[in-house]
């Protein structure tokens, strides 16, 4: 039996998902080596989902320390973890989710990681990082054919942005096939048959998607889209806030943060030449902390995109996903 083939134990464990995406997808997942940057509220949800799916290995990169608040919203942490390194503390419960996956923790600062570190993965998932690091990682990923998806949850808002390079994927479609029974002269009704259809999406580089006031990229191609989803600008505003402050908005200085968010919003909407009314300032009241069920939704979306990216089965989101913090709808937005 070759290494690539699924064992009977795996076939039984993954039965219900193999019935959905097929054994080939499962074999691709089984060969995937994944890096997850940030294992907070959203990161812990993503980690859970992809571990359960049956990947080969997961490296968890996070240099943070477990706070009481973090422990409350992160089910991979128990109370005795408070005060310790978060990446190491999530390991035990993460491993228990799926003993077949090789999991390791890295407590270094992602900024300090060299190019070589990022090159060896099948796909990288980035949460909670600043845009300059994100764009740097994307360059490395592009050079070494590593797929990348990033995302965050801010309060009840969440998003993801994918760079799956030139992504080839397959879908099952049902086609009507006329039955050939001509030898006895009997016409039977056409039968449905599953056909595998191949498609391709060419993803833009992230520096053409995430363009903030100080990045030296032209926003012209993005501006052309008339009905741009307003939450795309909310995403940019929050990223710019994190870039400037080195942290996410925090309720303990809510007023100050809301004011800064309003300022940044103006700058961004001016840059994109969009009416200020497009983004309501009231939204800034609900972007604090990570709301756990929103992490569950966005973490589910991101993990599913990772699974699609790795297995090359089903059409992935191209390329931005925006979770509406008011209606809870989730929309795909194609940017650049």
């Amino acid at each position, binding site marked *: 039996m070759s290494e690539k083939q699924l064992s009977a134990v795996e076939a039984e464990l993954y039965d219900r998902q193999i019935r959905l995406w097929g054994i080939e997808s499962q074999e691709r997942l089984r060969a995937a080596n994944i890096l997850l940057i940030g294992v907070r509220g959203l990161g812990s949800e993503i980690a859970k989902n992809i571990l359960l799916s049956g990947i080969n290995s997961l490296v968890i990169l996070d240099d943070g320390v477990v706070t009481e608040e973090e422990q*409350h919203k992160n089910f991979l942490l128990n109370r005795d973890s408070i005060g310790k390194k978060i990446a190491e503390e999530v390991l035990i419960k993460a491993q228990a989710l799926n003993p077949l996956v090789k999991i390791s923790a890295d407590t270094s600062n992602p900024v300090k990681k060299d190019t070589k570190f990022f090159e060896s993965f099948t796909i990288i998932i980035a949460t909670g990082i600043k845009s300059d690091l994100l764009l740097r990682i994307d360059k490395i990923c592009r050079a070494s054919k590593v797929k990348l998806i990033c995302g965050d949850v801010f309060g009840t808002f969440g998003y993801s942005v994918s760079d799956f390079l030139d992504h080839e994927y397959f879908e099952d479609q049902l086609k009507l096939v006329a039955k050939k029974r001509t030898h006895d002269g009997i016409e039977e009704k056409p039968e449905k048959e599953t056909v595998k259809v191949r498609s391709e999406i060419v993803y833009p580089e992230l520096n053409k998607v995430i363009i903030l006031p100080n990045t030296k990229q032209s926003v012209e191609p993005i501006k052309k889209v008339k009905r741009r989803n307003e939450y795309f600008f909310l995403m940019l505003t929050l990223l710019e806030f994190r870039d400037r402050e080195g942290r996410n908005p925090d309720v303990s200085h809510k007023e100050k943060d809301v004011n800064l968010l309003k300022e940044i919003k103006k700058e961004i909407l001016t840059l994109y030449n969009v009416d200020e009314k497009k983004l309501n300032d009231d939204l800034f009241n609900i972007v604090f902390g990570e*709301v*756990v069920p929103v992490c569950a939704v966005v973490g589910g979306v991101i993990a599913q995109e990772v699974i699609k990216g790795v297995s090359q089965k089903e059409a992935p989101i191209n390329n931005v996903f925006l979770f509406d913090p008011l209606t809870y709808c989730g929309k795909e937005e194609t940017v650049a």
Partner: protein
Amino acid sequence: MVNSIPYSIDASAREAIPTSKVLVVGAGGIGCEILKNLSLSGFRDIEIIDLDTIDVSNLNRQFLFRKEHVGKPKAVVARESILVHNPDVKIKAYHDSVLSSDYGVNFFKKFNIVLNALDNRTARNHVNRMCLAADVPLIESGTSGYSGQVELIKKGATQCYECLPKPPQKSFPGCTIRNTPSEPVHCIVWAKHLFNQLFGEDDPDQDVSPDTEDPEAKLDGQNSVTESGNIKRVSTKQWAQDIQYDAEKLFNKFFNDDIKYLLSMENLWKKRTPPKPLSWEQAVKVVGAKDENDETSVRAVDMEVWSISKCTKVFAESISQLRNDLEGKTFLVWDKDDKPAMDFVTACANVRANIFSIQQKSRFQIKSIAGNIIPAIATANAMIAGLVVLYAFRILAEKVQQCPSIYLRQKSVHSKFVLAADRQLTKANPNCYVCSAKPFVNVFVNVNKMTVKEFETELLKKHLNMVAPDVVLDAKGVMVISSEEGETEANNDKVLSDLGIVDGSILKCDDFLQNYELTVAINQYEAVEKDDPFFKVVANPDELKAKESNTKENGVSDHKEPESEDDDLLVLDDIVEDPQEGSSSKKRKLNTDSDDDIVEVPL
């Protein structure tokens, strides 16, 4: 202590969370996720009920369970897992059926909100009625593969789970199964029946021999079919025991002799490809690829279609194993996870398919169909459970209007919406036989044939989902059925007309547990065709005409889907009535646009 209630949600929800009491019904894929979300969002008083135990195939998504928990009760282990993370949450676990009379209306009234995470229609219907009776908001949810949905059910504000008729369970006419199979599923159903004939509990409805009563076989007034064909041996099982389950003899009887007999029913084959009888001797010669007997290869065992010679080998092996298993027992119960039982069905279904020139299937595919398996994944459950708890926040904030049904959809080129919400709440069906002010249905039965027991079991319990009904014949005040043991047992075997129930009679049916009273109008109806239903139930009098002209499908009314775009998704191999982590009432287009993608295989 740091407050774990999320900041960025409605202030009144934040206030309500610490003192709210929540019931989660089901600790499966969605249930585990809901429990985690509740506990991590500051809920302090949770009860969980589930009657199931943990299976290996749950572990790819039911993340509160681990391998060492296999066989243990889900509700109990889920509670323990949550407590490891947060010992301060008060969780009560019930390893029990929610249908039990221990959980009456007063039990439901204790909760501020009920969250359903079920996998079957019966329990969903029941909880729906309990929540209506207790006037507690219910959030119904379900997933099936990549898709899912969340729906609020609140008395007076929305439709209930039973407002729209569900697609009927698809069953197959006996003569299709026994005489003229044309699809793989027909052969699979036949193979399961054969299993029961040989090893299971005797069920006359599951005969596998040629059906001489087939009206088609008697066309043109010919009477070519003689009685001799249906000569019953003592019973199939007795005969099999008499020949000591000799695989070759069994094979020749079912796949050679019976097929030859079918061929003699010439009318059947005038417009069909006639079957080709297959003897054991011939069958063992139809060999496949060399490596197909590699037992360690998942692909060879499960994914590839077996050759006929491999089928004969597996046929003999599984019979010998099942015969051992039967020792000391009166019968075996077919189980998709029992290796010899599943092997037997795979081998028999494929041999029969081969005989009838029907496409053969892999063991893996046959297991999906025979076991009614719905694919289920962690990600879809996580998304749906996240939305359930976000809606729970809104309901606690009394923002019911902001909770229209919301759908998770497999991404498709036609739509940019991954999660799409309806524009508004869906209003109740004024003729709903459950949530309207005066629940009423017309039933069509043959009062001279249907017994009181059948009326109770098939119609009131199985179809109308009552648990313990009391039935009174309105005009005369005659007690027809009592939920008190022993009171009306004498009526069981009487036909309805014996008790004075005739066309036009009105019955008052009362389920005390569900706090549900239904008025039933009796209409005399006689089945004409062999495959006509035994009875019919019609809630909306306006539907009567439509129903009669369209008797094939039990009329699934077209339901409006505001946000729906043109997606023609098809869930492949989706062969069931209710999803694993079960979708709720309306399955949207993805499941309903094609008449034969959802089939219910009679068990």
